[in-house]
Every structure is written in structure tokens, then in C-alpha cells.
């Protein structure tokens, strides 16, 4: 464990992340740039839905990443609860707003896709309801962390909420199987391989990967910000005490 403990040191994190950051940011720009070009100009209109299906290239990567980021937040929370590595807590806290943003864009793009195809912006079906619950868990986590001033208590409460909320992840994934729903079942992550043509699969995967490297890039910036912010707050407290 001695080797792993090196990464619990914020100084080590700050040094390594600074080296990785430009590569991640560059990769993100390329993946999203090429992905958007392919999604809007190269991919053909979908056979049944036409051009409105181009919303898929943002909706699906947003939804995948919203769930992946929640998973990352839960793992970071468990890591903090077990080993009390401050960097793990910083990672969990820095992930929440990014995950909330992707949950929100998944819901909004889904709504804009649903109106012309289903005839409604919103329906309380299993998939949409379970994703909305995830959005509220993200909001709850952010509010909880902001409400508790004491660092250790805030980290503990947040970690427990994040772990309890993770039971929602399999519910979201299987919601289209377990319940009757308007939402279509998985076409990419399914047994038997993706049921989608290559010209549409390529931009989808480019944007899905681009959103993930975007998350990692923004995560590093938000973690750096959180580390600096905590130092500023503790120095101010010390100064107030004289």
C-alpha cells in the first residue's frame, strides 16, 4: 500500500495532473470536434426518424457519462470512507457538478427528441423517472456538501449519500427491460453487438469518448480548484484566529 499512498498526497496529484492535463484537453478537443463534424455533416439521416435522430449523438453520450461519473463518484466515496485519502474526497466532490450537468443535458436533449417522435416532451416512464432521481441525488449531494462546514463530516455524509444512491444505477440501466416504457432499449451496449450502422456508430463513440475525456479534463481543473480553495479557507480561519 505504500506505493498507493503516494497518490493520496495532493502535491503528487497536482504535479502528475499538470503533466496529463494538456494531453487530455487536446484529445478532448479532437474527439468532440471530429465527433460533432461527423454527427452533423457525415452521418446519414436516420431511416425512420430522419434528421431529428441527430440528437442521439449528444443524448446517448450525455446519459452514459452521467452514469459513469456517478459510478466514479461512488468509487471515490468508498475509497475515502475506507482509506481516508483526501484526494479521493476531492475527486468525489469535484465530480458531482459534472455528472449533474450531463444528467441535465441527457434529460433536456431527450425531451427535445421525445416531442417530435413520441408527441410529448415528458413522460413519467421508468427510464426518465430513474434518471430524474439520479439528477436529484446529484443535487442533494452538492447541497449536502455545501451545507456542512466541517470538512470531515461533510466528506462522510456525502460519501454515504453517494454510496446509497448508487443502487439507482442498475435500476436506470435495466429500467427499459423491467418496465413497459416508451424509451427504446439499448442498441449499442447489448448482447450480440451494436445494432447500428458504422456511419452512425462512429460519431456516437467519438462523442461518448470525447465526453469522457472532457470529464477527466474538467475533473482535474475542479480538483485543483478544490485543493486550492480548501487551503485558502483554512488559511483564512487561521488568520481570523490570529
Amino acid at each position, binding site marked *: 500500500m505504500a506505493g498507493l*499512498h503516494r497518490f*493520496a*498526497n*495532493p*502535491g*503528487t496529484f*497536482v*504535479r502528475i495532473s499538470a503533466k496529463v492535463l494538456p494531453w487530455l484537453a487536446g484529445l478532448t478537443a479532437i474527439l468532440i470536434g471530429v465527433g*460533432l463534424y461527423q454527427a*452533423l455533416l457525415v452521418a446519414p*439521416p436516420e431511416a425512420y426518424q*430522419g*434528421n*431529428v435522430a*441527430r*440528437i442521439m449523438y*449528444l*443524448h446517448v453520450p*450525455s446519459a452514459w457519462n452521467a452514469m459513469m461519473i456517478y459510478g466514479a463518484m461512488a468509487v471515490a466515496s468508498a475509497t475515502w470512507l475506507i482509506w*481516508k*485519502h*483526501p484526494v479521493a*474526497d*476531492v475527486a468525489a466532490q469535484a465530480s458531482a*457538478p*459534472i455528472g449533474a*450537468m450531463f444528467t*441535465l*443535458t441527457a434529460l*433536456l*436533449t431527450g425531451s*427535445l*427528441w421525445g*416531442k*417530435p417522435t413520441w408527441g410529448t416532451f415528458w413522460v413519467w416512464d421508468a427510464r426518465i423517472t430513474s434518471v430524474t432521481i439520479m439528477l436529484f441525488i446529484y443535487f442533494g449531494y452538492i447541497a449536502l456538501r455545501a451545507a456542512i462546514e466541517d*470538512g*470531515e463530516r*461533510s*466528506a462522510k455524509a456525502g460519501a454515504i449519500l453517494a454510496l446509497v444512491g448508487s443502487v439507482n444505477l442498475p435500476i436506470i440501466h435495466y429500467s427499459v427491460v423491467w418496465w413497459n416504457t416508451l424509451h427504446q432499449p439499448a442498441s449499442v451496449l447489448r448482447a450480440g453487438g451494436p445494432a447500428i450502422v458504422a456511419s452512425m456508430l462512429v460519431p456516437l463513440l467519438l462523442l461518448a469518448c470525447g465526453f469522457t475525456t*472532457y470529464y477527466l479534463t*474538467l475533473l482535474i*481543473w*475542479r480538483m*485543483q*480548484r478544490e*485543493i*486550492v*480553495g*480548501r*487551503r*485558502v*479557507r*483554512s*488559511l*483564512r*480561519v*487561521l*488568520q481570523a484566529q490570529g
Partner: protein
Amino acid sequence: MDAISDYLAMGGFAAYVWPAYVITVGAMVGMIVVTLRDLRRDRKALAELEAQNPMRNARRAARATQTTGIAGPEGDDRIDP
């Protein structure tokens, strides 16, 4: 010109496709802008605080925040007990 306006019309779905792209890309860019602005502001505040009393502040802050707080000059503090 017709080809461009045809394209922008998105087969009659312009009112759904373009807002979806504007909202998603706008949110992603906006979050980067806000994060970098906050990071720059906090780095400036930290530099000012450390300039006021560099060594004493750094050491005391490192001691004061053992498990969740993060303190001290970059790289020279081990937070693990």
C-alpha cells in the same frame, strides 16, 4: 444557398435539433469557463495569503487539516498519519 438553408432546416426538425446542440455544447463550455475563473481567483487569493506569512501559515494549515482539508506548500506535506 438552398443547400445551406435545406441543411439548417434539418428536414423540419430544426426547432429540436439545434437547441439540443446549443444547450449541450453551451453547458459544457460554460462549466469550463466558470471552473477556470474560480481556479484563477482562488490561486490569486492563496498567493496573497501565503505572501502575508508564508512559512508559519503553511505549517499551521497543514497541521490544522489532517484528514479532509488540504494544506501546506505543494509537494512537501504528507497528509497520511
